[in-house]
């Protein structure tokens, strides 16, 4: 009953004309971003975050979430038409989607991608709506030791799944913790790592690091090459974009598989939509009667991963909103956004801000319908975005990044820092250091330190408090086991195979 009344209240919020408009702006921008290779949702959300400071928080979170799940719809377009994933979660869609397009079935591939995204995206929101409130209630019993353990577990999972080298992923996470420590220590008012600069006393703005590492790092990486990829012809007319009844029948299991796997993987910190799409593709192939044809243009090979990467969004919002633990770079930026608007994601978020939570849930139902409408008949229009020359696109992204950082602080010093983090983001890509652990370390750093120090204050310095409470003991033990996985040959070989694929 609580859920039903919450949802009705949420629809009242989401259907307010202004919020409806922001929802449309978000999903539209998300689709464009998804279509454009080389510009992902974390970079876009980071760039647009400063512009939301003057907005109503409900409208702002509805728009940013719209970009997040909208990008996943758009990501399939380039995978199918160019064999270039619009974002990392669409990598696996290239395998069968591009082959379908080469055989003249681009329309059916684009259509089934949109339909699978809609079905699984809606199931993901349903999961979020049903799982988040009871989980938040359970998490109300958490105290500082449990929070420290939970954040350690989240960081350990991200480290495990973020990069091929666990040492590099851990180093990136520790680097993020270090950046989070820069500034004034709120317990003692000591200044730490400020290099004598007044500008650093209040710490380094999360936006500067996120835009630098994601947006600038990504653009610099893309600017390495001068060549542009060829686009296959986009079918015109709605009829040519609709899959046949046989196609839909063939994809029945793929819809269910993508929906369930995507949501479950999404709820795990570090899971992410790329892993969800690979897992559901693997499962689809394993159970299919025509598994030997996978890779040659099988429609289920498009439906399963596209469904999974959309359902994952609902799952990823569960730990973010109920525990305050982001599981990926994008959700870390959403966490920072909520904090910057004055909210504290965690067990009290839903009871204290029901309008915001249920408004977001309801907007995701509406956004998924908008995306289905946008992505079926209007795919040819979005594909035109790909004809925009990169020599114009990259300066535009750089300009929006500069304006975004400057508008947040009005400080040229921050623009200097942006240059530093942009170079760092590029070097991390080149040297194979994953960016997600750094951003997560930064997002969780001050919370982790606070939780640890509060725990030790509660126990008068006894570290045993972290392992004497059952929930924190279990979570810390899991974190240790996860970090020890690379030492076990077979498990590490499985991890590396999953990452290599």
């Amino acid at each position, binding site marked *: 009953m609580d859920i039903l009344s919450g949802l009705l209240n949420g629809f009242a919020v989401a259907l307010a004309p202004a919020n409806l408009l922001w929802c449309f702006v978000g999903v539209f921008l998300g689709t464009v971003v998804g279509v454009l290779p080389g510009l992902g949702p974390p970079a876009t959300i980071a760039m647009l975050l400063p*512009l939301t400071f003057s907005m109503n928080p409900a409208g702002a979170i509805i728009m940013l979430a719209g970009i997040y799940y909208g990008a996943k719809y758009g990501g399939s377009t380039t995978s199918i038409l160019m064999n270039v994933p619009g974002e990392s979660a669409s990598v696996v869609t290239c395998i069968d989607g591009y082959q379908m397009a080469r055989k003249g079935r681009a329309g059916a591939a684009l259509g089934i991608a949109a339909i699978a995204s809609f079905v699984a995206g809606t199931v993901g929101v349903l999961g979020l709506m049903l799982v988040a409130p009871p989980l938040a209630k359970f998490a109300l019993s958490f105290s500082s030791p449990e929070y420290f353990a939970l954040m350690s577990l989240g960081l350990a999972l991200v480290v495990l799944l973020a990069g*091929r*080298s666990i*040492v*590099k992923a*851990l*180093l990136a996470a*520790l*680097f993020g*913790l*270090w950046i989070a*420590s820069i500034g004034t*220590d709120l*317990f*003692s008012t*000591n200044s*730490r*790592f400020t290099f004598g600069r007044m500008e650093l006393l209040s710490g380094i703005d999360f936006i500067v690091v996120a835009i630098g590492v994601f947006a*600038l790092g990504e*653009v*610099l990486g893309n*600017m*390495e*090459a*001068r060549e542009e990829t060829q686009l296959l012809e986009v079918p015109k007319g709605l009829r040519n974009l609709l899959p046949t009844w046989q196609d839909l029948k063939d994809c029945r299991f793929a819809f269910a598989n993508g929906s369930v796997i995507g949501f479950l993987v999404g709820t795990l910190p570090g899971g992410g939509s790329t892993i969800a799409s690979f897992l559901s593709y693997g499962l689809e192939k394993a159970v299919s009667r025509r598994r030997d044809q996978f890779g040659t243009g099988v429609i289920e090979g498009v439906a399963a991963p596209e469904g999974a990467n959309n359902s994952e969004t609902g799952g990823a919002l569960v730990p973010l909103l109920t525990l305050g633990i982001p599981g990926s770079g994008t959700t870390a930026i959403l966490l920072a956004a909520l904090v910057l608007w004055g909210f504290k994601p965690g067990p009290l978020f839903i009871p204290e801000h029901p309008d915001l939570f249920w408004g977001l849930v309801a907007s995701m139902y509406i956004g998924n319908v908008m995306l289905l409408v946008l992505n079926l008949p209007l795919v040819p229009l979005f594909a035109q975005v790909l004809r925009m*020359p*990169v*020599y*114009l696109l*990259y*300066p*535009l992204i*750089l*300009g929006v990044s*500069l*304006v975004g950082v*400057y*508008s947040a602080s*009005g400080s*040229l010093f921050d*623009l*200097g820092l942006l*240059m530093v983090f*942009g*170079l760092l983001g*590029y*070097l991390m890509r*080149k*040297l*194979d*250091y994953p960016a997600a652990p750094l951003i997560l370390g930064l997002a969780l750093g001050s919370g*982790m*330190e606070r939780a*640890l*120090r*509060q725990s*030790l*204050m509660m126990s*008068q*310095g006894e570290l045993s408090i972290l392992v004497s409470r059952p929930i924190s003991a279990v979570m810390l033990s899991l974190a240790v086991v996860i970090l020890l996985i690379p030492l076990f040959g077979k498990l590490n070989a499985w991890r590396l195979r999953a990452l290599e694929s």
Partner: protein
Amino acid sequence: MEDGTRKSGDLWSGIALAALGVYIIVQAWQWEYSSPEGPGPGFFPLWYGIGMLALAALLVVSHLRGAAVYGKPADWKRIARALSAWLALAVSVALFKILGFVASFALLTYFIVAVMYRRPVRTAAISAFATAAGFYLVFELALGMSLPSGMLGF
């Protein structure tokens, strides 16, 4: 040769991170580790500094022992292109105080279009003017956001 380049990247990044780890430990050592009220400001940095030093040392040692290297080999031509784009961006930011955002950004766009993508001068000039004017119109005039202004007043 190229594989060696990638490996040396691991070595140098490992050394740099080890140095950062040492710096963090030295700094944290100077702050209070623990007080009657609980852990001090040096407590948390000391531990992650030690972790960073240990992991960076592990990276360096694995490099020296010839451990497997993942990822594509380095292509210096491509890296030089990306670094020149970064340098151009950094120079344009440094020029904000003198030329302001609009003029500096126009110069940056001109450089990217004409030099990096080798488009005709006319295309580059039109692109530079149009994007800089677009930013001024959208952000400064329409959205009322202030862009860095230079000696020319815009």
